[in-house]
């Protein structure tokens, strides 16, 4: 994978060799300047200015050692990193050389509806062979990304980073600045994946409970407790080991387009500050990111500056961006480690003073299991993290002999202790059916927990939670909400049907709101999966007890049986998608249109 790209033009078929050229390009520049200054306008990996030409092609791609096809943008996977400037008007000519309709969506960008790039909703899409010109003013700054919003094209490589320089002096000053695009690559056709999931929703789960884990659980927790615990799951027809689907059984996890073996490398000089702009461009995969030996200051989330939070690890759900600043002082390499939430695999790169260096790759953390708290039944097993869990716990709680080792703050963080909330009437009225597997009778508020697989580590590491996020700037709209819209996240894992309020996209119409109105959006997750819910064209301000300094988000991860709320002010009329950003979920129906009507209507 370290080869340079071959001849750039081979008709419509081109070879894409990851982004090895990106790292090499950075290495050749002067070391003292910010990374972006190292790459000139001629470098295909970064494009800047106000006019951009982007071309989508179906090309031969080799990310795994086997040649396959992919959707490239300007010949690369990922596509070029785009650099805009706040206050500019940008023009983007997107040419579709794919054999099917496409549309490029600018994720998190506030713009007029026809520029949003969602075929069907906001514009008719870009037909094969056609060029569509996007043109809109840039009213914000920060780290974003762009991707195809059509069918499964994103899974096969149609995504890239989008960086907007702020007007005036940037709030965050660093010596170096790198984009780290995380993604999940698969050889073959995503349609086959969806087909497999329809037949067997745990098709890619090779981390399930077995006879072996039953025996070890009996040894640890006793036969009665183990059988009772297994019976609870069996009665619900749920598998607590199903965290994400698909897993590394299908995927190769990429960092800036490179598999772990290629070891994408970012350079620093000891003592410098380095900004890493993490972008999760995956179709399905959540990453838990850490850099062993370095603490990370989370400074910028979803394109907006936040009061720095120093952490050892953070979870990056699908479609979200988190910028961290690290300050390596030693003259050695550090591994950028991004393990997938189910611990089936990882993406990996290196921060190093010189090219060609590497640091040890840490072992993955124990694989999480869902708990009764995830099922909206937090009382059933008060302290349970999970059975089969190689930490201090056993079924039914912490082992008495190990109780002394567990710090009190960790005990308090156990998911079973999560704050219970009252389900809104809209949730209580739900009835299980074909498209609704269970109702979260007792949803919980877990903004102060990082999520399954990390909660129990809170006493040992500093891990980012949504409760930590405090916007540097106060919110612009000080009005209280005038109404509340409740959306229940629902689905039937067994049938692989996903939706909102027990309905798929094609079964219901839009949700109507009025331009400029202030409303509260409340999500209750009635599934055993985490869902990153993305709202186009407007911000969601998370109500996390920071008053006017609510973080502005474009995507909100809702954990199983979690209830949370956000404030929204629609900024432009039109059809704005509100959907789960897990590709196979939204293609199975977890998608709605938020229709913003003009004030007079």
């Amino acid at each position, binding site marked *: 994978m370290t080869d340079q790209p071959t001849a750039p033009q081979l008709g419509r078929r081109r070879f894409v060799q990851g982004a090895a050229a990106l790292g090499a390009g950075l290495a050749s520049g002067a070391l003292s300047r910010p990374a972006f200054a190292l790459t000139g306008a001629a470098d295909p990996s970064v494009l800047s200015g106000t006019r951009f030409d982007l071309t989508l092609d179906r090309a031969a791609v080799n990310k795994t050692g086997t040649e396959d096809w992919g959707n490239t943008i300007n010949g690369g996977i990922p596509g070029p990193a785009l650099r805009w400037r706040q206050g500019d008007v940008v023009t983007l000519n997107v040419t579709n050389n794919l054999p099917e309709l496409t549309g490029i969506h600018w994720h998190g960008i506030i713009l007029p509806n026809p520029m949003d790039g969602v075929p069907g909703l906001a514009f008719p899409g870009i037909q094969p062979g056609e060029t569509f010109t996007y043109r809109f003013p840039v009213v914000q700054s920060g780290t974003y990304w762009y991707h195809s919003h059509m069918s499964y094209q994103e899974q096969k490589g149609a995504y890239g980073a989008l960086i907007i320089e702020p007007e005036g002096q940037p709030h965050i000053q660093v010596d170096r600045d790198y984009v780290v695009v995380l993604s999940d690559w698969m050889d073959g056709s995503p349609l086959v994946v969806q087909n497999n999931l329809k037949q067997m929703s745990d098709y890619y789960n090779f981390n399930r409970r077995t006879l072996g884990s039953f025996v070890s659980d009996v040894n640890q927790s006793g036969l009665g407790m183990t059988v009772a615990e297994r019976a609870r799951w069996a009665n619900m027809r749920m598998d607590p080991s199903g965290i994400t689907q698909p897993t590394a059984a299908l995927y190769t996890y990429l960092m800036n387009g490179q598999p772990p073996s290629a070891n994408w490398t970012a350079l620093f000089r000891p003592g410098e500050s380095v900004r890493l702009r993490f972008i999760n461009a995956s179709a399905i995969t959540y990453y838990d990111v850490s850099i062993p030996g370095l603490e990370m200051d989370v400074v910028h989330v979803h394109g907006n500056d936040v009061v720095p939070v120093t952490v050892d690890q953070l979870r990056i759900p699908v479609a979200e961006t988190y910028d961290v600043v690290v300050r390596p002082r030693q003259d050695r390499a550090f591994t950028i480690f991004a393990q997938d939430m189910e611990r089936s695999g990882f993406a990996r790169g290196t921060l190093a003073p010189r090219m060609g260096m590497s640091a040890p790759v840490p072992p993955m953390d124990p694989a999480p299991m869902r708990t009764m708290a995830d099922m909206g039944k937090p009382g059933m097993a008060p302290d349970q993290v999970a059975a089969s869990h190689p930490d201090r716990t056993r079924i039914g709680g912490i082992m008495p002999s190990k109780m002394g080792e567990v710090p009190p703050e960790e005990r308090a963080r156990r998911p079973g202790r999560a704050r219970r909330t009252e389900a809104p009437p809209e949730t209580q009225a739900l009835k299980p059916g074909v498209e609704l597997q269970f109702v979260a009778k007792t949803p919980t508020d877990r903004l102060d927990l990082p999520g399954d697989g990390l909660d129990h580590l809170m006493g040992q590491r500093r891990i980012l939670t949504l409760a930590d996020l405090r916007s540097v700037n106060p919110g612009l709209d000080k009005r209280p909400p005038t109404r509340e819209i409740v959306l229940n996240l629902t689905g039937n894992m067994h049938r692989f049907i996903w939706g909102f309020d027990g309905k798929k996209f094609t079964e219901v119409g839009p949700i109507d709101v009025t331009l400029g109105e202030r409303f509260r959006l409340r999500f209750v997750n009635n599934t055993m999966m985490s869902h990153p819910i993305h709202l186009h064209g407007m911000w969601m301000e998370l109500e996390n007890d920071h008053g006017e300094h609510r973080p502005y988000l474009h995507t909100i991860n809702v954990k199983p049986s979690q209830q949370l709320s956000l404030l929204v002010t629609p900024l432009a009329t039109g059809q704005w998608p509100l959907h789960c950003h897990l590709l196979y979920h939204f293609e199975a129906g977890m*998608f709605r249109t938020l229709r913003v009507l003009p004030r007079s209507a």
Partner: protein
Amino acid sequence: MTRRILPALPALPALALFAAMPAQAQIFGDSGAFFGSGLGADTLQGASPYGNLIADDRVYMHGILNQNEGRFGDGSYYRWSGQAWIGNDYNRLRLRTEGRYNSTNNGKVDDGQHELLYERPISTYFDLQAGVRADIDDGTGRTWAALGVQGLAIGFWNVAVTGYASNRGHFALRTDAAYDLYLTQRLVLQPQFETNWYTKDDAGRGVGAGLSDIDTGLRLRYDISRKFSPYIGVAYQHFFGGTARMRREEGGQADDLRFLVGLRAWF
């Protein structure tokens, strides 16, 4: 053995057709096609004015040959039992087929039951099925109307219960249940039980009234991939009442225990 099995394969035309198809072709409804159809501005009550982009109603297709095995013992035979379906989330056509080749050592297919069912979900885990069953093999042919439920029962048992009525005034009932016990991530032990019940004797097919037979198996498979799993196991059949009597009259026995080797496959 292989040469004996081969002649029985034409009994599986639908599944064979399936196997010949590339996986991509088994999925219909490319969402891109919607845009050429000139959908109006009212698509989805205004949710998607330029046409529906979300293919959440796509048609999928699957075939599984759950039993595809040689059964060895006092005389050997080939046995298949498979299912295929095509449809979207709410409307599916399901084909179920099973049979034995050479079980009476005379090179004939028997116990050939083939069902074509329309299937619609009625609850979180269960589908209602209605259609026809045709008993087509080297015995006397029979045709039945079929009505049943199939789904996932508590405890992760895959079950199917189907009632049948023939134009000759016969009624029948069939139950199926199977469970996957994961010994390791890829080594799976599958107990399986089938029972058949009839209201009247049918000498042409060698079945008697009442509980006719149970057909149980215990298969240990290794998932090389989800779609390709060789297995070994044992199958035990027991025949009751009139069915047992008819078998004994033909020189057979009321029960039959066999060792089996097979290959489970998805298409």
